[in-house]
Structure formats: structure tokens, C-alpha cells
């Protein structure tokens, strides 16, 4: 059991070298840290070495890397998973990648001399067992479940995509029994760590679990709370990777107060500041680096009387016909600020547009999924559809292509009015381009068939769009 745990952790660490360590791991497993560090370094070295090498070795290391990656990306990109208690859903979504990812690196690659993979195989051959619970996971239909569930892991999508081809499904079926136990071990580890963390990390739990809102200022408590992002800087840093703290002005304020209390930035010590701040989840490393930055920021102004020589440029650089006068300089600055404001404005607009576009794409994708599941159900009763096989075949085919295509109306139930979905998209993107506002006022005819369950879609734009589910056979790219 311990060997498994070690193996699992070593893989975890390999991912961690890239993505950062789960916050849960570091406080809870100090004993293993040295071992892990070595393994980490070894893995890094071996992973790097083998990426350079030929076929099989490269395969193994990169795939192993992906596995470790995915695992800790599930921890990295959604740190709230670690802090909030694992709900079954979260557990499942964490399991899913393992199950489907397991085929890629477990079975077929004979791994010659990668230290990580040797850990892997050694432990795996003996210790993996069947876990019936995992057989429930829809590895055979990765498209549906994973794409809806796997919003948590960045790497999941690839694993699911990789599973799409038939060969991979065979892999999955074959190896799911092998792969599940490893995943369950990791999961247990995570759960354990979450339990530990929950007792330690008091207040930030709530704030971190609200990370989904992704706005720092919306913290519930007026007092200080940072956001611990489970992420690490590059592996150029020292091996014990620390989760990164995302600082906020409020947190900084508390920091400054603590420092002042201790007699100023020169006299304050990280330990003292940490103690005074009393922010749970804040480590001495965070404080140390922040203090260093703080000192640097203050030192330069103090030595050069208020001007940051490094950052500012001599005023003579900006010149125009009459900008060299005193007011001229101010005017130049004014001009500069106007340009900068303009840039910022455009960036914000662009960002909002991008968000909207993706939101729309996601919505349509969801609709497509719903329709697909609706169609699958309809398959049972052929009387509803004139061509029961055609739409579902077509929808099965379309995922293989990456292009957005609209279903031609002759391929769908001719009994309903159909509108080309592509034109809907174009219309809405035109509107977006023209007005830069929330678009989607396109209307599609509702289906007259009895596909009632598909029409009750919990979608954000529900009020704006009446979509014919049967017509949405479109792959959003």
C-alpha cells in the first residue's frame, strides 16, 4: 500500500514539477517530501532526457508526464477542489481522467529505463485491482460525459479525445480494470489531504471555494484573504515547489500594517510578519518573497528621492514641437495616458468579447450534447423519425471533424422546419461585431416532434433562443 502510495505520489510529483503541488500534499506529507524531491528531480531529469530520445522512451515519459500532469492539473487548475470537501461529483470528474488516461501510459509501452515509469510498472503489476465502481464510468462514450464534467481538468480533454478512436476504446475497456486502482489510490490520497487541509486552512477555505467567481474583490469577509493558487513557477526554482499566492490589495494592506508594527521593512522579519498577519494558508515563503519585493520597491525611491530611475525614462525622450516646456511635458504625459487608456479599453472590450464567444460556443455545444442524447433515446422508437439512423450516425461522424458545420436539412427529420445553425452563428457574430453587445437574438423554429426532453435545456440564453434540437447537429470547434 505504501509502495502504491509512493508510486502515485511520485507520479503526482512529476506533474507537480510542471504544475505545482497540491496544497494538500505539502503540509500533510512532510515525511515523504525528501523522497519526493529526489524522485521529482529524477523524474524531471529523466523526463527531459527521454523527451529527447526516440520512440518508446519518449512515449512513456511524455505520457507519464501527461498523467501526472493531468492529475495535478486537476489539482492545479481547480485548487478549490482541494479545499472544499470532495463531493462525489468532483471525485468522479477526477477519476474520469485516470480511467481514460490510464490506457495511454499503462499498458502497451514497455518502459525501459525511465525512473518514473519503473516506479509505475513495478507497483502497478502487483497492486492494481479491480474496482467495480470504475466500470460505471463512461469511458466508452468519452465525448458526452467528460466534456460536460471535465471542466476541472485542463488535460482531460486530450485524454478523452485520445479515447475517441476505436483503438482507444479497446484500450480503455481492456485496461480500465488495471487503471482504476491507481486512480482510486490517488483519490484516497487527495481525500486524505483534503481532510487534513480543511482542519488547517480555516478561512481561506470559503474564499478559495469562491474562486469560481474569479473576482478577488468579491471576498465575503471584509478582512484579508488571499487566494492560494496551486501553481508553481518553472522548475528552475528550487525543488520544493510552493503553491503560489495570488496577492490582493487587502492582503497587502494587512502585510504593510504588520510590517509597520514591527518597525519597518528593514526590521521586520518574515516570521514576525506571518505571525502578525494571521492569515491562514499564508506561508513563510509567501511572506518572505513579498517582503523582498516590498523592500526593493521602497529602497529605490528612498535612495533617489522619489524617482524610479530604472523604470522611468528621461523626459527629453518624448519631444514634439512644443513639448519641451513645463506644460509641454504634462501635455505629453496626458497624451500618453490617453493612448494607454485607449489600449486598456480595447483590451477590456476584447476580453469581454472573447468570453462571450466562448460562452456561446459552450452553450451550443451543450445543446448539441443534449440533442445527441435525445436522439439516442429516440432511436428506440423509430416511428418518430423517418431516418432514425441517419442523424445519430451523422452526429457520431461529425465529432471526428473539427470544423463547425451545420446539418443540411435534408438529413434531418423533414417534418420540422429547420434553420441552418451556421447562419445563426454568423448572424450572432455579426451582431456581436456590429454592436459589441450580448448577441443571440436569432430564432429557430421549434421542433414539432415529441422531443420534449430536449427542449427543456438549462441554458443561459434560453430566453433568447428557441432551438430546434433536431437541427442542432453541429460541431462547435
Amino acid at each position, binding site marked *: 500500500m505504501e509502495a502504491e502510495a509512493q508510486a502515485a505520489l511520485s507520479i503526482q510529483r512529476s506533474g507537480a514539477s510542471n504544475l505545482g503541488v497540491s496544497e494538500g500534499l505539502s503540509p500533510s506529507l512532510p515525511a515523504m517530501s525528501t523522497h519526493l524531491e529526489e524522485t521529482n528531480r529524477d523524474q524531471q531529469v529523466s523526463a527531459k532526457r527521454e*523527451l529527447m530520445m526516440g520512440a518508446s522512451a519518449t512515449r512513456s515519459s*511524455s505520457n507519464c*508526464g501527461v498523467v501526472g500532469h493531468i492529475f495535478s492539473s486537476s489539482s492545479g487548475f481547480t485548487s478549490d477542489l482541494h479545499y472544499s470537501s470532495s463531493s462525489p461529483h468532483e471525485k468522479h470528474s477526477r477519476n474520469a481522467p485516470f480511467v481514460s488516461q490510464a490506457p495511454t501510459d499503462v499498458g502497451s509501452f514497455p518502459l525501459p529505463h525511465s525512473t518514473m515509469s519503473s516506479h509505475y510498472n513495478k507497483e502497478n503489476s502487483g497492486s492494481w485491482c479491480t474496482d467495480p465502481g470504475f466500470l460505471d464510468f463512461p469511458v466508452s462514450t468519452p465525448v458526452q460525459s467528460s466534456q460536460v464534467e471535465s471542466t476541472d*481538468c485542463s488535460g482531460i480533454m486530450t485524454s478523452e479525445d485520445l479515447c475517441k478512436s476505436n483503438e482507444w476504446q479497446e484500450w480503455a475497456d481492456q485496461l480500465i480494470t488495471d487503471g482504476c486502482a491507481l486512480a482510486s489510490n490517488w483519490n484516497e490520497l487527495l481525500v486524505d489531504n483534503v481532510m487534513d487541509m480543511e482542519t488547517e486552512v480555516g478561512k481561506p477555505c470559503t474564499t478559495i471555494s469562491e474562486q469560481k467567481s474569479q473576482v478577488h474583490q468579491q471576498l465575503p469577509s471584509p478582512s484579508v484573504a488571499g487566494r492560494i493558487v496551486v501553481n508553481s513557477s518553472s522548475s528552475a526554482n528550487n525543488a520544493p515547489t510552493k503553491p503560489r499566492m495570488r496577492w490582493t490589495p487587502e492582503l497587502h494592506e494587512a502585510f504593510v500594517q504588520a510590517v509597520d508594527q514591527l518597525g519597518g521593512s528593514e526590521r521586520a522579519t518574515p516570521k514576525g510578519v506571518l505571525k502578525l498577519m494571521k492569515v491562514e494558508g499564508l506561508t513563510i515563503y509567501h511572506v518572505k518573497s513579498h517582503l523582498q*519585493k516590498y523592500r526593493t520597491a521602497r529602497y529605490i525611491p528612498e535612495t533617489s528621492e522619489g524617482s524610479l530611475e530604472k*523604470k522611468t525614462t528621461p523626459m527629453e525622450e518624448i519631444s*514634439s514641437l512644443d513639448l519641451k516646456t513645463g506644460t509641454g511635458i*504634462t501635455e505629453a504625459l496626458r497624451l500618453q495616458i490617453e493612448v*494607454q487608456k485607449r489600449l486598456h479599453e480595447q483590451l477590456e472590450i476584447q476580453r469581454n468579447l472573447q468570453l462571450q464567444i466562448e460562452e456561446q460556443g459552450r452553450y451550443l455545444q451543450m445543446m448539441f450534447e443534449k440533442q445527441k442524447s435525445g436522439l439516442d433515446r429516440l432511436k428506440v422508437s423509430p416511428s418518430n423519425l423517418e431516418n432514425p439512423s441517419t442523424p445519430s450516425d451523422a452526429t457520431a461522424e461529425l465529432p471526428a471533424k473539427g470544423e463547425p458545420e451545420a446539418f443540411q436539412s435534408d438529413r434531418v427529420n423533414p417534418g420540422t422546419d429547420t434553420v441552418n445553425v451556421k447562419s445563426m452563428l454568423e448572424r450572432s457574430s455579426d451582431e456581436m461585431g456590429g454592436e459589441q453587445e450580448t448577441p443571440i437574438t436569432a430564432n429557430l423554429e421549434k421542433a414539432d416532434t415529441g422531443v420534449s426532453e430536449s427542449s427543456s435545456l438549462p441554458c443561459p440564453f434560453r430566453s433568447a433562443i428557441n432551438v430546434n434540437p433536431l437541427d442542432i447537429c453541429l460541431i462547435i470547434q
Partner: protein
Amino acid sequence: MKFGKWLKQQIEETLPAWRDKFLSYKQLKKLVRLISLAESPEFGKVDAEAEFVYLLNNEIDKFNAFFMEQEEDFIIRHKELQQGIKRVIDTWGPNGTKPSEAEYIDEMAKVRKEIVDFHGEMVLLVNYSNVNYTGLGKILKKYDKRTGRLLRLPFIQKVLQQPFFVTDLVSKLVKECENTIDEVFPVEVKEEIVKVQREAITVVGKGVFRNTVTALLSMQEIRRGSSTYGHFSLPPLDLPDSDLIHSFQLNSPIPTV
């Protein structure tokens, strides 16, 4: 213009010091080509794809780390600036401890310059975030196109939640900076600005200003109609002061440390 080229230009002209913090677009593009060319011994192909995702994740980590580091710096400097202004006003201002108009003007000028440059740096960081996001979107689109997979949509959903993309805090600091500037700058300058804007040519030297002008122009360039315009493309950039900004003459850039 091809994105890879544009990206390189962006980096070199705005923030060459941050060169390796930007997306390794070229590398990823090569990998995508490799993937699409790979014959289908399934392992070879999957291998390259796995590496692709692995690289992407690395890139995202890189962005996150850099972005948050810069953000932290900005938070600190923002506060220091505010305090600096206060100090100047309190010391050399009319109601200060050692009121002196000459000193006041002098120090205020320095402070103003600092604030404006600081503002510019923050905006450049937001620009950094945006450029990288755009690059990611493009490379994912390429990937989907070449391999027939559906990586883009879900992956980009993840990206949207990444710290480096959530630029709310920096934007907030930018806005606060603007407010401070409004307070700190004399009012009558505004009419002067209108006059200046009517001047034909402004030579923009080195510095943050130059970088932001370039960034803005580049953004306009990249958002011009493209050959692969689709429903996931952004519309062309609508820039009111386009003429003025285009009239800037740009010298070679200075790295922003």
C-alpha cells in the same frame, strides 16, 4: 499577417524583455504539424498529441506564474505611489510641512511621470495576457483542424479561468491609477492636449509610451479581417483615435524591466 509573425513583432516591439514569457507559438505550431504528419502507428501520434497538451499546460503555468508575479509587484508599487503622492503633497504642498512651490512642482512632475508609466506597464501586462490568450486560441484551432480532435473548446474554457486571464485586479488598479492621475494633473492641461493632438507628428521616444502605442497599433492590425474569419473570430478593432495614433513615429523599443 500570419499570427506567428505578428506575435514575434508584438513581443519585439513592445516587451522584448518578456520574450520568453510569451507563448511559444512557433514551437507549438511545429508540434501540430508533426502530429498531423505522423503516420498512424497510433502510439507515435498519440505521443505527439500528449506532448502537445503537456506543452500547453506548461505554457499556461508560465503565464500564470509570470502574471501573478507582476501583479504582486504592481500591488506593491501602486500602494507606494499613493503614499508617495501623499508625501509630496504633505511635505511641499501648500498645506504641507515645508511648503515650497518649486519643490512641489518638481516632485509632482516626477510623480506624475511615474504614475503614467506605471499605468502603462499595467496596461501592457493586460496586453500580455490578451496576446497569449489569442495565441492559445489560434494554436488550438490549428490543432483541431489538423487532427480532427475537439480540444479547443473545452481547453479554452479552462484557460478562461486561469489566473493570467482573469485580469480584473490589474484592470482595477489601472482604473484607480487613472483616478489618481485625474486628481494629480492640473485641470487646464486638458485644453492644451486638444491642441497637441492636432499637431501632425509626435515623436515617441523610448519608454512605456512607445510600447503601449505599438501594442495598440498591433492589436488593430491583428484584428483586421482575416482569411479564416469565423464565428469565433473577433471583429475588426474600432479605434477612434486611429489617425492620431498612426501618426506617431516610433523609434526602437526599450525593454520594460
